[in-house]
């Protein structure tokens, strides 16, 4: 267990350094100087120089990176945005709940869709339901999430008027009429559905394949021949084993999506991390983009750990070494 934890921590540190460093190197390639943007259009060379000194972009990039690491590790501070001098901590702190709402709600959506459809179509291969669900899978993985979003917004939001077309409302803090859990969910229904479709398709496919494979295992036949009732065989022998890879995938997909639900956020104008990152990139706002990347990486590290622990809990044969 100690060895396992030590390995985990080292892996997390390596991953963290790799991701943030690569991001810094990338920004070093940016052709236009952030200082020029900050100094404004009418700035003289001296102004630009002063702005660069103020932002710290006149130092070599490894010095900038070291300062960034130092700030982050010692003070848990992500610095200040180049674009508007806001604290990046608060920028990320404001955007993260939006993305988290989208991703976790979407995950619940897609699992609610994928679990029953995947299991039922595996139990009755080549039935009408199976055919229909496989068609859904193909369309789900082939249609562009942006396009699905636009069509949903047009149809349900504009034509039928069932839901708002864009926008986001806070879960807490019902200061205005846009706030509170009801408005929050009401504004997020379409984004959830859009976000969930691609994953629902992938998961239906995976769950179906896993269940089909597990159904042919020897221990399932043994359980049946011992006279175990069918629902028990399905629950304890088939599903428990077939769900193992699903848990891994779920953890990976959620953690990746936390950093980059860019398309859904753009279509529905949700002020989440993806939109923040795009804004930062368009304005050469390195600290903001780094902030989003740091958050995304932390999410990935945490979720990897959670998945590992869950895995050991579901399957007692697995020992964490």
């Amino acid at each position, binding site marked *: 267990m100690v060895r396992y934890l030590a390995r985990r921590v080292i892996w997390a540190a390596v991953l963290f350094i790799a991701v943030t460093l690569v991001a810094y190197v990338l920004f070093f*390639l940016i052709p236009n100087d952030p200082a020029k943007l900050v100094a404004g259009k009418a700035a003289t060379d001296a102004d630009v120089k002063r702005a660069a000194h103020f932002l710290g972009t006149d130092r070599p990039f490894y010095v900038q990176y070291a300062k960034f690491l130092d700030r982050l590790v010692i003070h848990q501070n992500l610095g200040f945005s180049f674009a508007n001098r806001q604290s990046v901590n608060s920028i990320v702190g404001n955007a993260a709940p939006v993305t988290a709402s989208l991703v976790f709600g979407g995950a619940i959506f897609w699992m609610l869709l994928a679990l029953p459809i995947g299991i039922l179509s595996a139990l009755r291969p080549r039935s009408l339901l199976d055919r229909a669900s496989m068609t859904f899978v193909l369309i789900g993985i082939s249609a562009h999430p942006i396009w699905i979003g636009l069509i949903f917004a047009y149809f349900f939001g504009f034509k039928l008027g069932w839901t708002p077309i864009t926008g986001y409302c806070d879960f807490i803090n019902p200061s205005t009429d846009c706030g509170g859990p009801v408005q929050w969910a009401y504004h997020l229904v379409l984004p959830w559905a859009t976000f969930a479709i691609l994953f629902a398709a992938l998961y239906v496919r995976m769950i179906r394949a896993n269940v089909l494979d597990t159904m042919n295992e020897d221990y399932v036949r043994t359980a049946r021949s011992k006279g175990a009732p069918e629902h028990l065989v399905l629950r304890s022998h088939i599903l428990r084993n077939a769900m193992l890879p699903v848990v891994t995938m779920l953890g990976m997909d959620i953690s990746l999506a936390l950093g980059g639900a860019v398309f859904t956020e753009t279509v529905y104008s949700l002020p989440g991390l993806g939109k923040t990152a795009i804004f930062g990139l368009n304005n050469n706002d390195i600290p903001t983009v780094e902030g989003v990347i740091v958050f995304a990486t932390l999410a990935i590290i945490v979720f990897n750990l959670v998945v590992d622990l869950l895995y050991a809990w579901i399957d007692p044969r697995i020992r964490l070494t």
Partner: protein
Amino acid sequence: MRQHCACRISATPMATEQHSPEILSSGAGLAAAVAIETGTELGELQPVRARGYWEQVWRRFRRDKVAIGGGLFIIFLFLSAFAGAPIAARLLGHGPNDLFAGGTNPQTLLPVGPWTHVSTVPYAGAVGHFPHTLFLLGGDGQLGRDEFLRLLYGAQVSLEVAIGATLLSMLIGVVMGSIAGYHGGWIDTIVSRVTEIVMAFPLLLFIIALASTVGDRLDNITLGFLGKGVVTLVLVLGFFGWFYPARIVRAQVLSLREKEFIEAARMVGASDLRIVRSHLLPHLVAPIIVLSSITVAQFILLEAGLSFLGIGIKQPTASWGSLLSDGPTYYLTQPWLMVWPGLAILFTTLAFNLLGDGLRDAFDPRSAH
């Protein structure tokens, strides 16, 4: 894996197809021979032609009508993108980037609807000698360009990016994967660790970041025939796309490396390069072809997404993603502008996915559920 509807059912009775002559010749015994007295007479044995690997794959693939449909659609798409688009432009008398004042409604400044005859008056010289030209699917936005032609030319860009990036990522992936798997040792450690780390990257963010940072420098490289921005996307997507193929190839090579025929080749003194080229790579062709087809579909989606965000293909070059991003502006009057590029993307990725699934089943019949 997929619903093989009718084709699956017709595919199952393999045994019935092999019928008389083959069973006889394979020495299945007299009992079998007597059982099938229907056809040729006893004793008149016909030699069986051995079927090669590719022939078997083709025979299995041919029965999969859905996959054939996907393949045919892809051929059709190539033809319409690279031959049809210029022909259509010639017939209509204008190009995809030509601006027409008549392409927007003068009162509302909104794009005209489908099947509109547009006056070429202010630009008559630029586009031939027709006083009017036809917009099959209407205008594309405030600039008054032809949506239909832009869709057709957008297919070029999509295919160029997706196929170029797939080739690049497969090339890097196969080289890295086979070196890591075959050589083992520290090279394997490095390649494996790097792929592991990169697969935990928030990749979409990095693709967006890289595309927007290096884009300005690479966008103008067109090699004479590619669209503006294609090279950037091919390099960026290829750069971030090789990890998955590398892992697959590495796993395959690792298991193949210990096989007897490799040992035999090594024993007769074949060089490493020769072993990899003539003994390992042929075994990798099947998984790589299948993976490529599915990767093309994913890259088409990604290209459209990046162009939608404005960091992929740059204007004025037409791309499905940028056409899609113009759509929502005209929600109220021209909702069709959102539909066409979306459908184009849907059908194209669907075709590549179907082809990939069909190829997988053809290469490895056991994989089919």
